[in-house]
């Protein structure tokens, strides 16, 4: 048996200011050459877990180890072998990407990657000398990622690696991360984007309020969710065949007045069902989409992703306005 790159056993983290645990009894492991996504809404405990692995926080109880080391006690031994990308990026404001990546490369000595080549890989060569504060949000994030990878880490911790990045650059970043994984790097990334977890991760751990609510490969998780379908109550004996035709999926009356539509429990599908009932003047008594806890969670995931998008858009607009004002 090979030793895991990361081992988390029964991790609990409590903060004095919080009435519940930020993280409660979380266990998982990551092997070399594997991407694990910690997926959950804001406040799920993702960052607390990652910061414990990075050595910023102490576990209240439980055990964490990175490459067989304790992140706090063996911090010096670990620092040259891990790469960290923080949510707040943490880069000198007046330095340009080339200078910063070269500076960080020097921290790691011989094991460092070629900084100029890496800059090219993350698509920042054209802004190599632009000071950090004048880079766009996506450029800042790609630089931050480059800094996490420049020391050729064996383990990389990436907090929301593609959140502010546009679609093209996102594909770029994802292929870079897959390449790292294929080279044997163990990657832990946090995200509240279901799509991100699905497309990148080998394993997904879904967290809510500090606890693991589901874990598995992306395929396992989406399958588990899809088989549940949408359950609803309506008058007995509705025309299930016509609704099934509309949904292009089987609809069954499991007991008198209780129906099950074997469709993915998305809000669009739910809207189609509700619309069909309304059109036929049928009352909708109760509706349940998917397995409750997971569906609830996904709703909130989507919600918080939308909130973040909105915040980012607002921020970008504010920045543009500032820039225009400065230019005029």
């Amino acid at each position, binding site marked *: 048996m090979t030793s895991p790159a990361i081992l988390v056993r029964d991790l609990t983290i409590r903060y004095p200011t919080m009435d519940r645990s930020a993280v409660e009894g979380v266990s998982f492991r990551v092997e070399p050459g594997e991407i694990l996504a910690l997926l959950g809404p804001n406040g799920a405990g993702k960052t607390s877990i990652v910061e414990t692995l990075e050595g*910023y926080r102490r576990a209240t109880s439980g055990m964490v180890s990175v490459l067989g080391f304790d992140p706090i006690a063996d911090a010096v031994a670990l620092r040259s072998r891990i790469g960290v990308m*923080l949510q*707040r*990026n*943490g880069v*000198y404001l*007046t330095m340009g990407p080339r200078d910063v990546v070269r500076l960080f490369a*020097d921290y790691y000595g011989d094991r460092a990657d070629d900084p100029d080549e890496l800059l090219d890989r993350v698509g920042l060569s054209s802004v190599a000398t632009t000071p950090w504060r004048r880079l766009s949000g996506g450029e800042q994030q790609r630089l931050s990622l480059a800094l996490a990878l420049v020391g050729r880490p064996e383990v990389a911790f990436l907090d929301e690696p593609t959140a502010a990045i546009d679609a093209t650059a996102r594909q770029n970043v994802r292929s870079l991360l897959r390449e790292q994984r294929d080279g044997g790097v163990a990657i832990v990334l946090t995200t509240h984007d279901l799509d991100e977890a699905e497309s990148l991760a080998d394993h997904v751990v879904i967290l809510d309020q500090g606890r693991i609510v589901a874990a598995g490969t992306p395929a396992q998780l989406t399958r588990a969710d899809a088989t549940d379908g949408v359950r609803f109550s309506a008058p007995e004996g509705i025309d299930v065949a016509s609704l099934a035709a509309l949904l292009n999926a089987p609809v069954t009356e499991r007991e008198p007045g209780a129906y099950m539509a074997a469709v993915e429990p998305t809000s669009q599908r739910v809207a189609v069902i509700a619309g069909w009932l309304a059109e036929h003047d049928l009352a909708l008594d109760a509706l349940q989409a998917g397995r409750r806890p997971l569906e609830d969670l996904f709703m909130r995931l989507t919600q918080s992703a939308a909130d973040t998008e909105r915040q980012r858009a607002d921020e970008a607009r504010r920045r543009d306005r500032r820039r225009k004002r400065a230019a005029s």
Partner: protein
Amino acid sequence: MTATTTPARRRRSPRAAQTRAEILMTLRRGESLLLTLAIPVGLLVFFSLVDVLPTNTAEPVDFLAPGIIALAVMSAAMVGLAIATAFERQYGVLKRIGTTPLGRTNLLVAKITAIVVVELVQFAVLLPVGLALGWRPPVAGLAPALVGVLLGTCAFAGLGLAMAGSLRAEIVLAGANGLYLLLLLVSGMMIPLTKLPSGLAAAARLLPSSALADVLRGCLTKTVDVPARAWIVLAVWAIVGPLLAVRVFRWE
């Protein structure tokens, strides 16, 4: 940009690379150059030529030059360091560097080296300006003056880091600049302490800024004669400042 315009990269040790970065960033910070260089030189020239300060000397430059050097040391070691470090802390730069192999000792050494470089630039400008204005410091005083500058740098850097590591960056920005102005007025750098109300003067003598000004003035005017009290006050601050920084500094 193409690869041909990319300057060749020289590999450096972590400490050398960080030191170089700190020096470049410090020298590029325009607003801090105003405080560390332009204002001290301006004050020295203006008040040496316009004799309106009660310096109690025939040549005001004899009184002013050592005081302005003390001001320069304070601005580089305390004000500049505090503001820059506070913003690095606020933007998460220090947090991020904490997980790299650079290490805290190298970071601290790099920052202090950058201060020393700024101080060398300050002396390289202030000394000829002072000489041109008629200042004639005794050669015998240079060595003890250097010791005074080192002690003062320790004291002020400690106080600067204590501020940077415990307060919000905006507060440090306002506070450090305010402190600069206050200490400039009450530390005998430009106005002799004897002109202050006696209570204020007694309190001011316990400040690291006035102790450094007294030491430098004792070393660098006519005959070398430094009151023991000034050495003691300065040495105590050189220990207390860094200890305070170690106690209160938070990395994030």
